[in-house]
């Protein structure tokens, strides 16, 4: 079963990461889900694939009532992001799922109907949650052509989807980046290959550098905190991506 770790807490405003399942089969990529709560309501980012639904659901049930999760946020359309949608809807048919307008007729192949989806326009939008207003931040072409991150200005946390993702080996399964230089080896190849546009990457780095971010939380790998956030943005800005083009 996955573990839950609280990243931020201010009253009932919380960020909880659901990560690191020791029972996860090796052929499934590891994922991080983030539960954001405010005023008794929950929003789950990139809830994951069908195969990991039991691990995610049961881990969450230990810290928060899953019936109070009314909103899902899908950074993009991949199966490891949102293929569990049908199961979440079986549990709560009135759930809403925010995702790029680009995918609002593709993702319904995983489940849902016309009432389920809240399409996000290219420029992003505000997403209400309890007493909070979260912001869907554009990150198109990083890696998906319709891609969003989710920013909580009060907690100063950015959920960054596949940006900042790393493939950390089992024996070094740390949740927080503590040695940035060493961590590069686990994320460099991923970013070079999965990210296709240097222009989009530059655009995102400029936008992110203007935001106040205490924690940058990717969907795979480890979380960046404090000075490592800025270090990461600079590192990414310098990185040449789109390695598959030369392949």
């Amino acid at each position, binding site marked *: 079963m996955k573990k839950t770790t609280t990243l931020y807490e201010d009253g009932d405003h919380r960020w909880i990461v659901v990560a690191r399942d020791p029972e996860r089969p090796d052929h499934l990529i590891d994922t991080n889900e983030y539960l954001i709560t405010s005023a008794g309501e929950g929003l789950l980012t990139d809830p994951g694939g069908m195969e990991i639904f*039991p691990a995610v659901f049961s881990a969450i*049930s230990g810290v928060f009532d899953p019936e109070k999760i009314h909103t899902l946020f899908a950074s993009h359309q991949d199966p490891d992001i949102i293929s569990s949608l049908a199961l979440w809807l079986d549990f709560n048919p009135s759930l809403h799922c925010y995702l790029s307008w680009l995918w609002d007729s593709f993702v319904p192949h995983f489940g849902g109907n016309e009432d389920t989806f809240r399409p996000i326009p290219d420029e992003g939008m505000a997403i209400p949650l309890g007493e909070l207003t979260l912001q869907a931040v554009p990150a198109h072409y990083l890696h998906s052509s319709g891609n969003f991150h989710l920013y909580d200005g009060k907690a100063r946390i950015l959920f960054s989807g596949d940006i900042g993702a790393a493939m950390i080996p089992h024996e070094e399964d740390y949740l927080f980046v503590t040695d940035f230089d060493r961590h590069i080896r686990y994320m460099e190849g991923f970013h070079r290959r999965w990210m296709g546009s240097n222009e989009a990457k530059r655009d995102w780095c400029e936008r992110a550098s203007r935001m106040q971010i205490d924690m940058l939380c990717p969907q795979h790998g480890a979380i960046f905190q404090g000075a490592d956030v800025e270090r990461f943005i600079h590192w990414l800005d310098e990185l040449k991506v789109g390695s598959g083009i030369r392949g």
Partner: protein
Amino acid sequence: MNRGWRDAELLRVVRLNEAIKAVSEASRQVYTIALNAMFAARQSQVRVPGFTRVTEELRVFSQRLDRSVVEVGGSLGQMVRVGAELAKQARRGRHFERADTGCRRQGTSPALLAGVLAAQRARQGECARLLENLRHAVVEALGRALRLCGIGEQLAVLCKVEAQAGGVNAELDAVAVRLQQAIAEILIRLNGARALLKP
């Protein structure tokens, strides 16, 4: 059936569908052979009114058999759709059962997923009942097709008798033999299809 739509069952329906397609093809062959036989009889020097009449009956047989086979094909199509739904529900059910086990380990109330699990089981039960009804409909339709084939067999024998009625006519005799062979092929396929439905 409640344990889910297993791959082996889907494979069985696929094989059944192939057998039914072969029956349909053989039935069309009967129609074509019977039609050609009628033309051949008209062109022959020998008067064979009985032969011509039997070939007409064989064409009617072929059309009735084809309708019967279309009915089976429709039921098989529905079986695949319902079976796929059952497989989907069973898969979802397994995910929820695992989630339920995890929640209990967390000390969460068993009531949390009780409703979803009950609904999953009810949907699976409904699909299983539908599948059983469809299987029954296919068995019945195949039984009717087999009884029809009994008539077809008799017509083919009659055809051979009538071909010889006006004296030895090698061409009409050969046609009668081809009709017998085509109907025998249909019988083999239908019996094979029925055997596939046995539990």
